[in-house]
């Protein structure tokens, strides 16, 4: 199919447009290399399933690409992507939970953990995931980011564009709440 061109758009403007597009793609490819894994990890911190996390991270990257041209400060891409990934993962988690509740409502009694389950080594991880799900979103994101790649408080503060003190208090509150639930 022949490509649509606006009336009055000349070959020069077309060329300039293509060049701009190529530059944009180059920039985005670089961001993708740097931040693709971060997006996945943020999503993985919210979701229990790695495959779901990949889907969410991919969606977050595609969405951010659509808006990439409008982003004036490219250095903020990382922070932006973290927020998009976190939000998408939360939405995905909620819809998955609803679906699971619908599908397994009849078998609720069967899913109770057995003695073997409790004794299993991943029991703590499962309880931790459950406890994480009950944390307030703001505290949860701070806790996730401090755990990912060993980010320092200052780095997390920069990512979330928050004062370091706020990050510190949110982190402390999140860990305290987790400990209360897991004690």
């Amino acid at each position, binding site marked *: *199919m022949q*490509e*649509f*061109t*606006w009336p009055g758009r000349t070959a020069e403007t077309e060329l300039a447009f293509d060049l701009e*597009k190529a530059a944009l*793609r180059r920039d*985005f*490819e670089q961001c*993708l*290399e740097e931040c*693709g*894994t971060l997006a*996945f*990890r*943020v999503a*993985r*911190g919210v979701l229990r399933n*790695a495959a779901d*996390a*990949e889907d969410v*991270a*991919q969606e977050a*990257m*595609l969405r951010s*690409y*659509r808006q990439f041209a409008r982003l004036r400060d490219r250095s903020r891409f990382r922070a932006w992507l973290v927020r998009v990934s976190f939000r998408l993962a939360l939405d995905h988690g909620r819809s998955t939970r609803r679906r699971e509740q619908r599908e397994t409502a009849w078998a609720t009694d069967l899913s109770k953990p057995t003695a073997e389950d409790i004794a299993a080594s991943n029991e*703590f*991880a499962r309880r*931790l*995931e459950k406890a*994480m799900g009950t944390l307030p979103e703001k505290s949860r994101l701070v*806790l*996730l980011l401090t*755990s*990912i*790649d*060993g980010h320092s408080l200052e780095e997390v503060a920069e990512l979330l564009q928050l004062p370091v003190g706020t990050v510190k208090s949110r982190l*402390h509150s999140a*860990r*305290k709440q*987790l*400990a209360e639930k*897991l*004690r």
Partner: protein
Amino acid sequence: MTCDKYENALLLAASSNDKLDAKLARHLEHCSSCRLTLRSERELFSRIDSTLRAQVNEDPSSAFLAHLRLQLSKQLTARPGSNRVWHVAGAALALILIAGLYPLVNARHSSVQENLETPTIRVAQSARVTQSARAAEGLTIRSRHHARRPSAGSAVPREPEVLVPPDEQRAFAQFVACVARRDTVAQAVVTPATNKTVKNTELPRVSFVAMADLQLALAGQEEWIKQTGSSE
């Protein structure tokens, strides 16, 4: 048993991994129970951290980035902002909307114009002010409830209107009647000043006889108002 006094300090120390407070450190030297609590709390927090790190630092599958690039390329082939299908669909939708809404807007406009005509005629009939008086003064009584008339009707030539609040309609009707009867005081009020100097804008003197005539006429006006009721 943990000493209640140090409970919060213990939890804070365990969660932050900071250097112990001197007071707490002194207490821990003597209290084995608090030492045990601190150790178990530190274990719990380190377990939380390590489990969390293990969970969230998992690497995506090797196909993740490749698949992402593929999806990106698909997006790039469909150039954003120049999709012909969307342009055509948008134009078609706009045309449909215009075609659909035009008769509605037209019908509404004509009904508004009809409504604009009606109250003036009705009020004019009910007021029964003499034609000569209205022609002379160009006044039409309207209720305040009709005041919110859209300016769309301005194309229709109309008499100038006076908006009268409902509680003043009776007095205004009396006044109009006085004007129609060419009573001296009423005429003096509506007659424009011949000169703009302060002296000449004063009302002309009215004799006591003329005032008495006006008062006598009031009784007749009241009877007329009772007959016609309010202006609406």
